[in-house]
């Protein structure tokens, strides 16, 4: 069953720059999809559309049955709570401890501090950072910060994880560790959509969507080769 459905979706920025053109595809629940392609291909824009950060300029985008153009300022935050976002720049709050950063998605959803702390510690244990819960993010390495951002993305048990270049700026070992974790969440049934230009990662995917100049130029299922 499809959880995300693109139908002739386009995204054009106000300056007339076309970021995506005529994208049509379905993503099934529990699928692991890689968005591949060079910088500027439209991978991040596609993730932003799914996250509701940007709105489609044309076409129909349904995420979990919700028409993304119909979400407004009031309904969008509630809808976002089913997403786990892993961003390239981590975007951790540096004046809060690692634990407090991971608690945020729970706190904004109305969980008590006690409950949020308990669940955040479990999430940090899952990314092997349980012993660094009380440190500030700056005290961690890039790889560790990315793992904190993964813990923050999964702490509220999202239905969909969106990851934008999760291994960028990480060394090979840290990158592998991050990808193994995402693979584990996928195995647990979470839909994962990962934008990357690192071709070494693509072999794990159920599907690879290859983008170029804002267009889908190829789709590759696990059973076939990457190609048009």
């Amino acid at each position, binding site marked *: 069953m499809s959880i995300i459905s693109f139908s002739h979706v386009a995204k054009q920025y106000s300056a007339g720059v076309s970021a995506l053109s005529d994208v049509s595809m379905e993503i099934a629940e529990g699928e692991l999809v890689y968005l591949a392609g060079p910088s500027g291909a439209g991978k991040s824009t596609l993730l932003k559309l799914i*996250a509701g*950060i940007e709105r489609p300029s044309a076409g129909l985008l349904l995420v979990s049955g919700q028409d993304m153009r119909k979400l407004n*300022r*009031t309904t969008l*935050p*509630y809808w*976002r*709570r089913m*997403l786990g*976002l892993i*961003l390239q720049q981590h*975007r951790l*709050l540096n004046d809060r401890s690692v634990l407090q950063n991971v608690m*945020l*998605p729970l*706190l*904004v*959803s*109305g969980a*008590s*501090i006690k409950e949020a702390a308990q669940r955040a510690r479990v999430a940090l244990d899952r990314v092997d950072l349980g012993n660094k819960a009380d440190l500030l993010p700056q005290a961690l390495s890039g790889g560790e910060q990315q793992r904190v951002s993964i813990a*923050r993305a999964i702490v509220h048990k999202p239905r969909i994880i969106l990851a934008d270049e999760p291994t960028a700026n990480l060394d090979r070992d840290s990158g592998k560790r991050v990808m193994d974790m995402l693979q584990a969440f996928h195995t647990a049934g979470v839909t994962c959509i990962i934008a990357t230009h690192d071709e070494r990662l693509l072999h794990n995917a159920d599907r690879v969507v290859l983008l170029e100049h804002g267009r889908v130029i190829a789709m590759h299922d696990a059973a076939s080769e990457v190609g048009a």
Partner: protein
Amino acid sequence: MNWLREHWRALLSAFARVRATPGGFVFNVLVIGLALVLPLTGLTVLDNLRPVARDLAVEPELSIFLSTEVARARAQAMEADLRQQAKKLSIPVTLEFIDRDQALTSMKTHSGLHDVVTALGSNPLPDAYVVRVVGGADAVSPTRITQLADALSRIDGVESVQLDSVWVKRLAALVDLASLSLWLLASTLCGVVLAVVFNTIRLQAYTQLEEISVMRLLGATDAYVSRPFYYLGALLGLSAGVVALLLVAAGLAATNQSVAVLAKLYGSQFSLSPLDVKSCALLLLVSVTLGAIGAGLSVRRALRAGD
């Protein structure tokens, strides 16, 4: 419970922001507090003056002083002449005869001039009538009251006629004018308070734009993000209101001694009292509301900017 918890957490978050920059907070409280002191002082003084002005006779009142050579019997008989003049002009009046002995006793008792009056030996005061217009100033025009004064002054045996209510009316008018000016000033300074809170919260929100943006990405609603700023604005307003009340109370305490000395010279016990509890509570409510409104306007703008 969830709702209460969210508000409690927002309040704690506002306190945390105050703790993070205590100097800036105190400075802003002082600025807003000082802006509130001026209208608050004016309100306090007016609040004290209003009852004084109200207690004074604002009804048109004429004092008719008779010649000292007029005998008591003739003086008492003049009441009919006075009434007749008033009737001619169709002005309803009441008359009160104050004999010279009664006036002297009153003067000795109330004016603080007992020693001076005693030293005079004989009574220098004339017999007098007080003529009050029934229905007050609203019933009879000032022109007609002046006509009455002229007519009475022409009666044989009348030495002089004094229209007593004029200065009282002027005082009442001045108090009303001061009150109106004060409300205008207070409105302007409310604008100042709003502007200061708006700017303070705007700066605070802009330093936290990244946090706001991350929170929104994680599913925080506008209300969740805004709430701590509303509390911060309300805290600013509340603290500034308390500071203003304390400054005004200190100012009154400092000036009251001089006011008491001055009042005593006029035989009065008048002193300036601080605003009552109800008025203080109302003022604090107004300053808290202004703080929250300023914060609301500011944070709404910051949220749009953060999108």
